[in-house]
C-alpha cells in the first residue's frame, strides 16, 4: 500500500460516495414515480441535474459567509465520510477511520449542517432561517434515539471505534449487531429515516411552506454543491448503518447491496407518509423510538 | 301567496320604495332612497333572515348622471334573493360604508371605489386594489374609452390587423349573410 496508492484511495473516497449517492437518489425518484403509476425520470436524472447546475453561467452571493456556507457543508460531510470505513477487510477504502471514533462521527455529521446554517443566515431570507430552525429542532428529536442506539452498541461491544465494532460482528449473519441488539437497531432506524430527510421528516426543506428552506437563496453553483453534499450525506449514513449494524462490507459490491436494501426501507416510508409538523416530529421521536431504545438499553444493562 | 309576495307587501308599506317588482322568479328587487338602504338591509338581515350577502355592484347610468348601487342578499332557508337598489349622484359619488353589517362588503366597496370612483365614507382601507399605480380615471365608467387607452399604452403585435370587422357580422350584416 504505497503512498501513491493511498493517495488515490483517499481521493477516490468522496467520488465513490458521490456517484453511488446520486445513483440512489435517481433510483429513489424512479421508484416513487412507479409507485405513482407514472414512468418517472431516468435513473441518472440526478447526475444530469447536478451537472446542469455545475454548468450554470451565473450565481449570486450575499457575502463571504454566504459563499462559504455550501463549501463548509461539503467539507463537513466529506470529513465525516472519511472517518467511516467503507470496506471492512483489505486495505482499501478505509479513509481515516482509525483516527476517530463513533462520537466524533456523530458530531461531524452535524458540523456540515451548522456551517450551512451560517451561509443561510447571511443570505437574509426569512424562509432560510425558518428552515434552519426547523432543521435544528428536528435534530433534537432525531439525536436521542440515535444516541441511545450507539450507547447500546458501545456498551455491548465495549468500544467506540467503528473498525473494532465491524471486527466483532464478523462471522456470519447471526452475530450482526442487527440481531444481537435488534431493538437498538429498530430505534436507530427511525432516526435514520429522519436524518435522511425522508418524507415524514422533511419539514426543513418543505417546498410549499418555506420555499425549500435553507436552500432558498442558493442558486447555480451553490445549489450544485448542496445537492452533491446531500447525495454524499445519504451514502455516508447508509455506510455508517451498514458498518454498525450489518457487519460492514467485505467489498464494494456487498457494500452497494447492503446499502441498497437499507435504502429501499427509506423509500417505503417516504412514498407512503405525509409530512410531520416540527413538534409532531420531535414528539414522535421522543415517544416510540426512544422507548424502544431505552428497553434495549435496560436489556443491555441487565446482561 | 308565496313568501316573496308577502314580503313585497310588507316592504311596500314599510319603505315606500319607488319600484318594487319581481325581475325573475324568486327574486324581489326594490329601489329605495339613499337614507333607507341601511334600514332595509338590516330589516332583511335581522328580521326576515336574509343572512347571506351575495354581492354589491354598481351600474353607471351615464345619461341620468347617476350611479345605481345594487345590494343583493340571499335567504338560505326560503331560498330566495332580495335586491336593494339606490341611486347616487355621478359627479359627487359618495355613499356610507356598510362594512359593519357584513365584513366582505369592504372588498366590494373597495373595488367599486377603484373602478367607478364612488367614495365610501368610513371605509377602513380605500387603497388601490387591482389597478396598481393607475393614473387615469376609474376605468369601468362608461365614458372611459378603453380602446383609446390601449392604443396609447400598449403596442399591438404586427400582422394582427382585423382581417374582418366583427361589428359587420353582428346585427343586420349577419341576417344578410344568413339570407345568402
Amino acid at each position, binding site marked *: 500500500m504505497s503512498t501513491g496508492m493511498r493517495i488515490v484511495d483517499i481521493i477516490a473516497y468522496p467520488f465513490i460516495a458521490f456517484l453511488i449517492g446520486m445513483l440512489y437518489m435517481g433510483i429513489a425518484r424512479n421508484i416513487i414515480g412507479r409507485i*405513482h403509476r407514472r*414512468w418517472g425520470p431516468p435513473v441518472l436524472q440526478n447526475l444530469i441535474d447536478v451537472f446542469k447546475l455545475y454548468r450554470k*453561467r*451565473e450565481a449570486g*452571493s450575499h457575502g463571504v459567509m454566504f459563499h462559504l456556507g455550501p463549501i463548509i457543508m461539503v467539507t463537513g460531510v466529506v470529513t465525516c465520510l472519511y472517518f467511516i470505513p467503507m470496506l471492512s477487510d483489505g486495505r482499501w477504502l478505509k479513509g481515516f477511520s482509525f483516527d476517530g471514533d463513533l462520537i466524533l462521527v456523530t458530531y461531524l455529521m452535524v458540523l456540515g449542517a451548522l456551517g450551512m446554517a451560517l451561509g443561510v443566515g447571511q443570505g437574509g431570507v426569512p424562509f432560510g432561517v425558518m428552515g434552519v430552525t426547523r432543521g435544528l429542532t428536528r435534530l433534537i428529536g432525531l439525536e436521542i434515539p440515535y444516541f441511545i442506539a450507539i450507547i447500546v452498541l458501545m456498551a455491548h461491544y465495549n468500544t467506540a471505534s467503528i473498525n473494532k465494532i465491524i471486527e466483532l460482528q464478523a462471522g456470519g449473519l447471526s452475530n450482526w449487531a442487527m440481531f444481537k441488539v435488534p431493538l437498538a437497531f429498530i430505534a436507530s432506524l427511525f432516526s435514520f429515516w429522519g436524518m435522511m430527510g425522508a418524507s415524514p421528516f422533511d419539514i426543513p426543506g418543505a417546498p410549499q411552506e418555506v420555499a425549500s428552506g435553507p436552500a432558498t437563496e442558493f442558486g*447555480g453553483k451553490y445549489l450544485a454543491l448542496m445537492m452533491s453534499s446531500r447525495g454524499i450525506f445519504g451514502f455516508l449514513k447508509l455506510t455508517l448503518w451498514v458498518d454498525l449494524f450489518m457487519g460492514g462490507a467485505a467489498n464494494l459490491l456487498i457494500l452497494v447491496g447492503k446499502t441498497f436494501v437499507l435504502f429501499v426501507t427509506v423509500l417505503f416510508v417516504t412514498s407512503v407518509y405525509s409530512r410531520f409538523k416540527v413538534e409532531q416530529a420531535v414528539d414522535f421521536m421522543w415517544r416510540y423510538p426512544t422507548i424502544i431504545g431505552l428497553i434495549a438499553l435496560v436489556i443491555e444493562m441487565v446482561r | 301567496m308565496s313568501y316573496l309576495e308577502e314580503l313585497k307587501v310588507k316592504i311596500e308599506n314599510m319603505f315606500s320604495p319607488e319600484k318594487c317588482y319581481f325581475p325573475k322568479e324568486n327574486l324581489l328587487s326594490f329601489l329605495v332612497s339613499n337614507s333607507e338602504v341601511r334600514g332595509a338591509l338590516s330589516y332583511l338581515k335581522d328580521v326576515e333572515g336574509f343572512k347571506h350577502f351575495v354581492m354589491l355592484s354598481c351600474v353607471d347610468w351615464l345619461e341620468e348622471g347617476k350611479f345605481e348601487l345594487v345590494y343583493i342578499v340571499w335567504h338560505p332557508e326560503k331560498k330566495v334573493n332580495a335586491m336593494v337598489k339606490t341611486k347616487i349622484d355621478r359627479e359627487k359619488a359618495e355613499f356610507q360604508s356598510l362594512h359593519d353589517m357584513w365584513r366582505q362588503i369592504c372588498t366590494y366597496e373597495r373595488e367599486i371605489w377603484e373602478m367607478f370612483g364612488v367614495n365610501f365614507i368610513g371605509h377602513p382601507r380605500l387603497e388601490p386594489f*387591482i389597478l*396598481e399605480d393607475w393614473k387615469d380615471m376609474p376605468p369601468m365608467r362608461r365614458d372611459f374609452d378603453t380602446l383609446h387607452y390601449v392604443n396609447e399604452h400598449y*403596442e399591438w*403585435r404586427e400582422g394582427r390587423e382585423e382581417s374582418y370587422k366583427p361589428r359587420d357580422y353582428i346585427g343586420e350584416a349577419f341576417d344578410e349573410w344568413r339570407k345568402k
Partner: protein
Amino acid sequence: MCTDNPGVWEYIANWARKHSIWVLAYGTGCGAIEMPPTMTSRYDAERFGLRGAATPRQADLLIISGYLATKTLKRVIRTYEQMYDPKYVLALGSCTINGGMYWDSYNTIKKLDLYIPVDVYVAGCMPRPEAIIEGIIALQKRIEEGRAEGAKKYRENIEWYKKNQREVFGDEMLPDYTWNFEGGI
C-alpha cells in the same frame, strides 16, 4: 474554462440543460391549472427531466401561463431577473401572444416579448398538457441547438426592455438592483 465558445464542453452542457429543466412553480394566469396534469401520472413531464423548483434562484424555466395584468407583470419581471443565466421562458395561451380575449382590456399586456425575451409560445386558449409537452420538446430542441439564449438577449438590449416596461409602469419602476451588478465573490 467556461468560455461561451460552442466547444464540446458546451455541447455536453447543453445536453445536460436539455434533459434537466427545473420549472419555477409560479402560476401567473388561468394556465396554471394545466401544470399539475402535465406533471402527474397521465402525462408525466418528469420523464423529460422536468422538476418543480420553489424559487427563481433554482429554476431554469419560467412558464407564463395566461393573461398578465400590469401588476402581475411587475412580479414576473422581478422573478425573471432573479433567475440565473441559462433561463428560458415558455408562454402559454394566446393572451401572452397578442392579448388574446383581453385584446382591448386596459389592464392586460398585449405582447409578452416586449417586456421579457420569450423562447417558445404555445398558442391556444389554454393549451392542453399535450400541447405544453409539445412546447417543452420544442424548447429542448432550441436548448440543444444553443439558441435558447434569452438571458444574453435580455442583458444586451436591456434599455429597450426597460423602455417598454417604463411605458406600462410609468415612473413606478422596479428597483434596478436586480439587474445591474458589479462583480464580487
